[in-house]
């Protein structure tokens, strides 16, 4: 009998401290492969710190984390398996949209131009692909950032506010794309403040508050247990109501 596959993301006692401030405290998290994990929390709760550790951009103060089975201390191994869209799309203003994607595809060693064109088309970027990124609107940059995160068909897709700045049509495209990649066994770690998006897409939701994971479970379970059949927003407000949300 084969052992069960390792989870896509797991953290054990993960702690991050900046000076005297605890950003994350003893975080234990398990995200199964092929699932969509909605990561919620008020501003300053520690979401970005968690994401930066999972993407190897910063080291934990203590504890361990693994992404796609690789420890985050092994940066080279982790970046091979992940696609990442931070809150501000990491793009170069001086390049055209197509050049940006060709560059990332080249760095990834995944020069599949058919896929590039198909993703550009899907996100309505084909007509603007040869314009410089500096001329793009915020929504277009966000879409291009998502395309470059998806290019190499990563095992784990980590998205920080992917629908921020998008018009309803583009936001719909992003949500559909997330559903599709999840159906194709890609694990999606989705951090957002737009709760209906999480409610629609996530298999599991985790709510971080003051660095602690204060609620975790399927959206339906959480709404039943905590908000007595209310919405995810009710759950969020309930579990983060003890102290002021803004840190």
């Amino acid at each position, binding site marked *: 009998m084969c052992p069960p596959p390792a989870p896509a993301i797991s953290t054990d006692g993960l702690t991050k401290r900046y000076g005297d401030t605890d950003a994350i405290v003893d975080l234990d998290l398990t995200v199964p492969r092929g699932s969509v994990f909605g990561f919620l929390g008020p501003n300053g709760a520690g979401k970005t710190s968690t994401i930066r550790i999972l993407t190897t951009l910063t080291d934990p103060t203590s504890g361990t984390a693994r992404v796609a089975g690789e420890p985050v201390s092994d*940066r080279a191994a982790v*970046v091979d398996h992940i696609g990442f869209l931070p809150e501000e799309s*990491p793009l170069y203003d*001086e390049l055209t949209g197509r050049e940006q994607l060709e560059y*990332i595809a080249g*760095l*990834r060693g995944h020069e599949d131009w058919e896929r590039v064109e198909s993703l550009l088309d899907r996100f309505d970027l084909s007509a603007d692909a040869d314009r410089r990124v500096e001329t793009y609107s915020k929504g277009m940059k966000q879409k291009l950032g998502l395309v470059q995160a998806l290019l190499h068909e990563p095992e784990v897709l980590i998205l920080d506010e992917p629908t921020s700045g998008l018009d309803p049509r583009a936001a719909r495209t992003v949500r559909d794309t997330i559903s599709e990649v999840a159906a194709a066994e890609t694990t999606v770690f989705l951090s957002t403040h737009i709760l209906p998006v999480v409610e629609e897409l996530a298999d599991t939701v985790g709510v971080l508050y003051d660095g602690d994971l204060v609620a975790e479970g399927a959206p339906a379970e959480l709404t039943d247990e905590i908000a007595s059949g209310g919405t995810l927003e009710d759950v969020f407000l309930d579990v983060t109501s003890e102290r002021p949300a803004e840190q």
Partner: protein
Amino acid sequence: MRRPDGHRALLVARIELRRTWRKLLGTTRGTLTLGGGGLMISLYSLALGAAALFLGGALVESDPHAVRLATTGAIGGLLGLVAFVTLQHAVKSTGEPDAADGLLTTIPYEDALAGLVVAEVGRVFAGLALPLLALTLGLAAGSAGVGVALVVLVGSVLVAVLGTLVGYGLGLVTKLVASRSAVVARHRASIGAFVSLALPVGWIALTTVPSMQTRVLRLVTRSPLSWIADAVLLALENPSADPVHAGVAAIALAGSLPLGSVACLWLAGRTWYADPIQPDHEFDADERTLSDRLLRGRVSTATRVVAQKSWLRTKRAPITVQYAVMPFFFLIYQLQTVVLEGVVSPTFPLTAGLASAAAAGAAFSLNPLGGEESVLPLTLTANVSGRNFVSGLVLAGALPGAALTTVIVVGVGLAAGTPPLTLGVALATALVVTVTAPAIAAGTGVAFPKFESSSVQGREVVVPSGWAFVGYFVVFGAAVAPAGLAFLFSVRDLFSLGGEPWLLGGGLTATVLLCLGCGAVGYSYAANRVATYRFD
């Protein structure tokens, strides 16, 4: 730490260089810089090639000590220049990847670092390739010979690459210290502004003292650092050449490149992933600052807060007004005279005072509208009249400007042994100009506003427009001309007018009247323009 992947590093370098090229061609300033730089480098290369062709033979006939001195000086100069330029570049922009969150989650950081360093080497050689080629061809075609030309070419390339690695490494160290030290983090803007000013001034001061350079060079030629000169002497078939020294120097130079690369990799791993210290800016509502004590109750609240805001922004980010130090560079010639001859020029007190006045005027008022950046809509819709707003900007420049001008004029005047009457006139003139210059600047600043940001030391800053600078300095120059000329005639005793009280008095009166007139016009125009400004 792993060995970088060559393919990825070259891809990163290619894109970095393409971005640099497009940035340069994307603005008029960049295109002019590129054209001007290209022309200067071409002319310099022609001169260097011609010198190598016709004078290269002197190397053959020179005594070994002169060759050693020249080689060591050239290597030191090239290494220092390349390292300094790269250090500045690394601290300002290339010391970490742009869009780092994307690049560092796409490839291992070692590949990114290697790409950035290769791109930096590419930029260095974009400037050095033509002069090096001209030098090599000149030496090879002239009586110095092909052997010397090859040694010089290979040596220069290795030294330039080493300089790039040293500069880049020092840039990473600077960034690491800035991100880890609370003191540096809190004052990094001030430290950066000071270093930016101190380095060119220090360099200019050093180049004015040839004896000091020669002394340093002689010390170096007695150390193993000059052993590379033995390689040149070997190529010249000079009997005093030491092959062992030449071999050791060549191995050390070539070996320092991988060592420098490893050091840069190690430093990048620490710098790029460091959690930067965020300095606290504590706010105490009851605290009375010096500016509170000076202004509260004496000017309207709106004027006071505009002035205080200007000072606070400058304190936190001096780079936003760095252009204002430009007038002080006009004092370099007189500073050189002080250093070289130990004599303070009699005109120095007034010129120093006028430089201070020009700086005070330019610092806060030369772009009243654009300087507000994204806050401009809020400023225009807040309950601040045009007069209150412009008064705040004028106060922001005039108050510290008056203090600085007094200190400078009196200090330099005492050092120069200026007679009391002349010193009094210089001080009065400089103070009147200091107080009115911000109003003159405000007038030209609203006439030629600039809203687009420019990159200054890697930071996007809205600096005043070129036309505002020109307009301001024309009006400023016309206003200070009578007192300036009178002072010059008096202290230099030109046309036998030295010590004539009517001359100094007349010049001062004319300048006072002109400054007050121009200041009043500039102030009214600026206040009216701010009050009626519309986004069209």
